[in-house]
């Protein structure tokens, strides 16, 4: 029976640019036996009905095991094979991608799906997909609001996009109560005892992301991109060995000048708190030169840490 099904597939392949009738199949593919009259036409008797059913079963098997789909065209009484979803070149390149990249966190249900049979020893890039991504994708695809708990607050949310930024997954969209755009980190969505962490909160088709919404831009989650503080231009003196790390940490920063000791780097700051915390990673190797208000706030922060280890001076020294 397997041989018959595979012969059918091969035959359909040979005729994939045209139409194939039941009569063609019965004549050319062993295993589909029907009666023909003296003129060579198929006789519509009980064996005809049986072979039709057999063909239908075999086509279903081909679809389930190999994803090969075939439609019956009533007016012409013929079968038409759907065009392949991927070209051979596209398949090859996706298999190459799967051979390079291991993607954790997704349980594929399609056993022979493309890229699931690669040699895992050769995978050199490992990515993680957070388990909430699929639930949010589904909600997004059918434009259905979702609900989840985030930092102790129940949220109703229209997801507009999901994305990965520096190894963490986020979703961006609109929260219903505030009516404003927000970004949520998926690993901070809280578990529930009474159901899945992300639940339905409305009907499909309930929202549409704004036409001007730029998903890649919205998921560039550098606080210096999305921060709401008044934008200021900062200048930072960075020691030579640390310049590259600084430029990597603060994307969009530029070297203004260099000398034998290091460089002066400029960047636009839109999130003061995050900028201060990230700058502190460079310790004495990066000194903020401007603007004055941020320099003063940083020095006050350091003064409180240096002098009192917290307490009154710290609070008064804050920016």
């Amino acid at each position, binding site marked *: 029976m*397997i041989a018959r099904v595979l*012969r059918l597939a*091969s035959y359909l*392949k040979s005729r994939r640019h045209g139409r194939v009738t039941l009569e063609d199949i019965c004549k*050319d593919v*062993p295993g589909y036996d029907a009666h023909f009259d003296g003129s060579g036409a198929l006789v519509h008797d009980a064996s005809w009905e049986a072979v039709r059913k057999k063909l239908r079963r075999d086509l279903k*098997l081909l679809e*389930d095991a*190999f994803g090969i*789909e075939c439609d019956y065209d009533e007016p012409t009484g013929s079968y038409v094979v759907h065009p*392949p*979803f991927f*070209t*051979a070149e596209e398949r090859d390149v*996706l*298999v190459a991608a*799967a051979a390079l*990249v291991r993607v954790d966190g*997704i*349980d*594929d249900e*399609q*056993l*022979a*799906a493309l*890229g699931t*049979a*690669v040699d895992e020893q050769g995978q*050199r*890039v*490992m990515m*993680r*997909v957070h388990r909430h*991504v699929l639930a949010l*994708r*589904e909600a*997004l*695809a059918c434009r259905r609001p979702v609900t989840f708990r985030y930092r102790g607050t129940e949220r109703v949310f229209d997801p*507009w*996009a999901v*994305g990965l930024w520096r190894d963490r997954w986020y979703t961006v969209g609109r929260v219903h109560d505030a009516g404003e755009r927000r970004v949520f980190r998926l690993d*901070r969505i809280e578990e529930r005892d009474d159901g899945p962490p992300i639940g339905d909160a409305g009907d499909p088709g309930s929202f549409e992301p704004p036409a001007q919404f730029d*998903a890649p831009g919205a998921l*560039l989650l550098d606080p210096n991109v999305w921060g709401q503080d008044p934008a200021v231009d900062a200048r930072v003196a960075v020691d030579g*060995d640390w310049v590259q790390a600084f430029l990597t940490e603060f994307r969009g920063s530029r070297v203004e000048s260099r000398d034998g000791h290091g460089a002066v780097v400029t960047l636009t700051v839109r999130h003061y708190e995050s900028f201060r*915390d990230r700058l502190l*990673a460079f*310790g*004495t190797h990066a*000194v903020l*030169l401007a603007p004055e208000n941020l*320099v003063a706030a940083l*020095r006050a922060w350091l*003064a409180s*840490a*240096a002098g009192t*280890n*917290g307490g009154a*001076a710290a*609070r008064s020294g804050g920016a």
Partner: protein
Amino acid sequence: MARTTAERLRLLARVLAMADERQAVRLTDAAAEVGIDVEGLRELLEPVLYLEWRDPLGDLHGETRAFLVTEDDHLVVTDEHWLRGLASKPPDPPSALRLFTAGVVLQAATSRQPSPALDRALAKLSDVLQADVVVHVEPPPWTQLCERQHRRRRTLRIRYLSAVHGEVREHELEPHLVASKWGNWYVLGRIVGGDGAIRPFRIDRIVEAEAGERTFEPEEVELPDWWDMSEHEKTFVARLPARDLDRLPQPNRSIVSRELDGGRVEAEITVIGERHLDHVLLALSPDSEVVWPQEWRDRRRALARALLERYEATENAAFSSRP
């Protein structure tokens, strides 16, 4: 092998996929992976290996070129996997997401030689997902040089900023593997003249790199599932506003041991390496305090003082250089 035809076809699809995606697969390995014996697998494969039918003119056709079992019992795809070539069903959303993620990484890694086929495939997968899924991937500078030296089997000279020690060191490395894990890119290499161990170096911490000329024999190196950094763990106890736990520089592991008044907590905070410890200590908000160990309370003060002194020195230098 009492299985339904549907089950047997699904097994066959998996085995043919292995041969397709690995160029060749040993029959014993394939049989073990799908949970049948080798004879059962041979029986399963027979139709696909010797598949023939006649056209209306009586000419013999078949796919006998596509799948072959070699003399040493490997199943290989010599032509194309024609069954997959006929597949019109799109991958389901989980498979599409997996392929999309892998494809975006490949696209980023080959951005200097774009592949129209990959771009087309990603567009199709994006249509399957019916959602904006954005995967930002950006290999750090020096990744290509690391890759090139790995391929050329030549060493790599680097100035490397050690996260553990917080200082720049110079090394000449044999780059045995360039790999990425969870957003970070690494070169796994042996230091020339070192202790012989192959160690991971994060590529974004390479300050400078240049090609070396020493040759080496590449070794099979695997990216480990986990690096045991426990010997570099630093743990301290701090009292701080609860909301600050989310703000502290990542990565860290914090366990709240006690809730205090006014929305404050006492937490045990663990970080890896001296440099990261210094960062977290400096990033503690002014109304936080390190309660244990005493030496790190002092360390926080000393770090803050040293940084303040640097600011004062910078300010004085700027003042004295004014006309």
